């Protein structure tokens, strides 16, 4: 209390501490959504863990036998598919980044009035059935289509065979190349959107400052733009790689029996194989655990607020 104020009301009641009121409203708002996710997302994933160590069949039912061998079986039986999944999704992510970054950069900084329209062009195709679009690639990359013929005639396919991308030099389809190609096509918007959001937030005056300091466009990008866009890069990478690992539509439609991936295996085992449930669960568990690991690593570095 300071000397200058002598305004104490003569009949003032004792100044007691007010308790902070507990607001329960947020919990009511959160409950339905959170419960939905817990029941239909979290618990199933947890039950998968127990399912993964069971044995039995659809006819006779499954019982918890703690068959950890399911996991080792998974790795031994489906080794090829696991490798395929990893390779394809890594390739897809890298390519998406390589293609998506310039695209996002261009729209963010050179787009001007057309920014929104261009982004719409990037997103809009994604709104039309991706299955049909993937089928459309069948048409474009068809064996006797002009794209294939052009690449064969220019001997590009020979080079690609040597690189292991194609299985023979006159077919673009049913190859690792077409699978990754399709994946890149389908996942590109997932990479571009977070990248664009991140890049768009960068104050263009920083570029001017960078040009002033570094002179060269490359250096400005390397030391100013790139670090600032990093959150978008990471988010884009996460949102691309993780779904890509489990994706199998592209492998199914544009690939061959030699390009099978985990996703197909899981679906097969789960839906078509009598005894397949536990091993499908094991694979699901591994996939999810991997995802969780990657997310946790990211969260450790960057906190959770940027996730959403």
């Amino acid at each position, binding site marked *: 209390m300071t000397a200058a104020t002598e305004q104490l009301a003569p009949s003032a009641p004792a100044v007691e501490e007010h308790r902070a009121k507990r607001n329960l409203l947020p919990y009511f708002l959160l409950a339905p*959504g959170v419960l939905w*996710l817990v029941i239909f997302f979290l618990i199933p994933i947890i039950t998968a863990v127990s399912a993964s160590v069971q044995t039995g069949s659809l006819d006779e039912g499954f019982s918890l036998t703690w068959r950890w061998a399911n996991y080792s079986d998974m790795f031994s039986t489906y080794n090829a598919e696991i490798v395929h999944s990893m390779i394809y999704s890594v390739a897809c992510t890298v390519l998406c980044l390589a293609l998506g970054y310039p695209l996002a950069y261009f729209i963010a900084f050179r787009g001007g009035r057309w920014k929104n329209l261009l982004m719409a062009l990037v997103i809009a*195709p994604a709104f039309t*059935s991706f*299955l049909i679009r993937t089928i459309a690639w069948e*048409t474009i990359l068809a064996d006797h289509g002009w794209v294939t013929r052009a690449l064969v005639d220019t001997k590009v396919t020979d080079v690609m065979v040597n690189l292991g991308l194609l299985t023979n030099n006159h077919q673009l389809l049913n190859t690792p190349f077409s699978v990754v190609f399709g994946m890149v096509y389908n996942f590109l918007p997932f990479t571009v959107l977070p990248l664009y959001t991140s890049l768009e937030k960068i104050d263009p005056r920083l570029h001017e400052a960078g040009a002033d300091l570094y002179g060269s466009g490359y250096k400005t990008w390397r030391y100013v733009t790139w670090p600032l866009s990093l959150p978008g890069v990471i988010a884009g990478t996460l949102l691309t790689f993780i779904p890509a690992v489990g*994706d199998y539509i592209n492998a199914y439609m544009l690939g061959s029996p030699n390009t099978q991936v985990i996703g197909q295996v899981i679906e097969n085992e789960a839906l078509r194989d009598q005894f397949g449930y536990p091993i499908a669960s094991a694979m699901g568990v591994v996939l999810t655990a991997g995802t969780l690991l990657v997310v946790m690593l990211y969260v450790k570095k960057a906190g959770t607020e940027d996730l959403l």
Partner: protein
Amino acid sequence: MSKALDWIKRHMLLAVTLLILLFLVAPNLVMLVFSFNQPPNKYNYIWNKFSTNAWQHPCASSDMCSSIKLSVVIAVIATIGATILGTMVAFAMMRHRFKARSALNVLLFLPMAAPEVTMGMTLVTFFYNTIGSGSLGFWTIVIAHIMFSLSYVVVTVKARLAGMDPTLEKAAADLYATPLQTFRRVTLPLVLPGILAAALLAFALSIDDYIITVLTAGNEVTFPMYVYASFQHSVPAQIDVIGSAMLLVTLAGIVFAQVPQIIRTRRA
């Protein structure tokens, strides 16, 4: 010399961008073109001759149209569910304090990042163990769709709320508006575009989903399932018709969404 290099550098970015955009749009163009094709055989891969047959008889295959109907119904219900639940969560996150915020962030992020095949498979296991395998069908699909759309709704509405000046609600309270009145008169009108965008997103996610749907569908056949299955034995031109129609509707929607903005800038 460096001026020429500059020109190349500047326009290289433009060239690359255009190429990539072309890459993104190519299948849609092919789809559009081939919807006017009369397929030479069961597959619509090779150009035969021009025909509007497919557009005139879009439901030549009745299975296809019933699957479309089913997909739309599911999408509408799932959209309503996901939008309501997700909006509530977004409000709680942006306007209130509560515990376990980090855990909530992770819980909401995971469905966006987790592989669909895992979510679908584990959900089916869950259904098997709880309601039995015989009850897979319409409602299990809806449940699954709400589940994976929720997070996207939350993200979208959150973004819109974040852009809204929080002082506005305080001003409303200062001006004698009860919390309910504040919500109705100030918050809701300002958040509505975000909620609509979220609903649109949920609708798009639902109508095009394959992996989770096929696992939880039981005997039902949605449009993506129809396309996937038909891929094995025939690809009628009608499929391209539907795909093109979806694109045109989407583009129309985007154009329409811009109209109020254009009018506003013209008037000001």
